[in-house]
């Protein structure tokens, strides 16, 4: 933990040669080739890559859920040794990360258990977070009574309710239908505008990465690390119809398709 007081703004995230092997039958198999990245505070960065490129391993290392075999992750300058405070994560499988034995309200409140805040204060924060993600009326419902898209909104509410400075999202919309996905994409952009957040968004969908990010990082399968790291030359205000039709969008998309195809070949 760093001693200096942190400003009430987003934190940056830096990776210095972070790579990981896992053991199979006692032999190390590379899962993530060493990656060095610097994500400044407040940035919206997307990470894409073919399956087997170690995207999930990378996110888990950033979240402090996995100690990488090599390299250091730093959040706000401090090396990560366990799940850092001020960092929240949204998983792909909302059905498994929300607890079926808790109501929506209690699921969101889980993130505030150790905040030291009083009951009433927490309750208000939960209500506000649910409003923020567009779910004002479901506090008393159980997650399994909601649609997939609504469940993922609850998971997002739980992630932002404790006012994190960094939001990690691991293929969060891979399991929902196309229309819901578009709505959720706009929700994430909107939250990022409204809250002091650095967002790292991992996806396998090239279009999604271009539409959402200020920057797209392309991972390759080991032994390749970062294959490309490109800025997204799109205006800050985006919408599903015009942005996706813009020339800059289609150009970048084509370029990234080429990168991914090359990454798949090794």
């Amino acid at each position, binding site marked *: 933990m760093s001693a200096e007081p942190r400003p009430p703004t987003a934190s940056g995230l830096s990776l210095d040669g972070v790579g990981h092997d896992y053991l199979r039958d006692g032999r190390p198999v590379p899962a993530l080739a060493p990656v060095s990245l610097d994500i400044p505070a407040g940035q919206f960065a997307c990470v894409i890559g073919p399956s087997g490129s170690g995207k999930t391993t990378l996110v888990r290392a950033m979240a402090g*859920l996995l100690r990488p075999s090599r390299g250091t992750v730093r959040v706000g300058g401090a090396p990560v040794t366990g799940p850092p405070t001020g960092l*929240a994560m949204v*998983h792909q499988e909302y059905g498994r*990360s929300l607890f079926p034995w808790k109501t929506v309200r209690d699921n969101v409140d889980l993130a505030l*258990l150790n905040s030291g805040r009083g009951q009433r204060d927490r309750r208000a924060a939960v209500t506000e977070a649910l409003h923020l993600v567009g779910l004002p009326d479901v506090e008393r419902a159980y997650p*399994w*009574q909601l649609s997939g898209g609504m469940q993922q909104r609850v998971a997002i509410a739980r992630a932002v309710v404790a006012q994190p400075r960094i939001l990690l999202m691991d293929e969060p919309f891979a399991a929902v239908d196309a229309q819901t996905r578009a709505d959720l994409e706009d929700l994430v952009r909107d939250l990022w505008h409204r809250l002091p957040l650095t967002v790292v968004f991992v996806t396998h969908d090239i279009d999604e990465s271009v539409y959402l990010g200020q920057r797209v990082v392309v991972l390759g399968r080991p032994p390749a690390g970062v294959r490309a790291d490109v800025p997204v030359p799109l205006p800050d205000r985006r919408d599903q119809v015009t942005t996706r039709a813009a020339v800059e969008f289609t150009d970048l998309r084509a370029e990234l398709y080429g990168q991914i195809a090359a990454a798949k070949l090794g």
Partner: protein
Amino acid sequence: MVIRELPSAATDLTEGPASDAPPRTVGRRRLRRAVVGTALFAGLPAALFALWWALSAGSTSFFFPPLSRIVDTFGTTWTPTRIGQDVLPSLVRLLAGFALAGVVGIALGVLIGSVPRLAWALGPTLAFLRAVPPPLLVPAIMLVLGIGDGMRITVVAVGCVWPVLLNTVDGVRSIDPLARDTVAGLHLSAVQRLRHLVLPAAGPRIAAGLEQALSLALVMVVISEMFAARDGLGRSILVFSQTFAIPAMWSGILLLGVLGILLAFGFRAVQRWALAWWFGATGAVR
């Protein structure tokens, strides 16, 4: 699958506002469903009981008296005094032993399930102890504790602890890693993890273990009363048969059966209340 055969709680929870049929039809349909449900539930048991009654009506067999006589004897045998003397103590021992087994089994199960090395170290010992038939522990425990309530409660507790313990271990071990990840990022204390994650997540498995334990508890209490005969329901039934009080013996068997059924149904009611989320969630998925 464990609780599948019960009418699902999910229908009540997920239905409701969705129905747009006029209320009258809904009422009639609900009534019909209730009638069919009751018929399915009570039909065959009632028919079998009637069949027993009819077939045994003219029975002159010494061992198989008419059901009407058994029912008559039931009233005269199981008077309030006798229930207070023989049945209540058995029930109290049963529940005390069951509660003890529950607490110890869940506590040890959570511990062993959370610490893989402990599970490895104790694995062979537990596998052996579980395989020892619990009734054989009655003579051993009697030797150590004598004949008394302490012995009987211990017999029940030692006999029933295994299903609770083993199911809890399995339940804790099979907690979704993603749920653990979720909690890891929230910086919860051990107690909070137990309360908000481990116990609820393992709850359905723990309940399955408790259910087995409860049916075993009744057996253990009766065996302890039959083996070390001093008092209790088990001894009464045995004495009836030894003194050839056949209708009274059958009434005792009936009473034991009814007790077993009441315990099983009571447990399910508690289970459906305590695990409402689970019935809802699994029902909604299917």
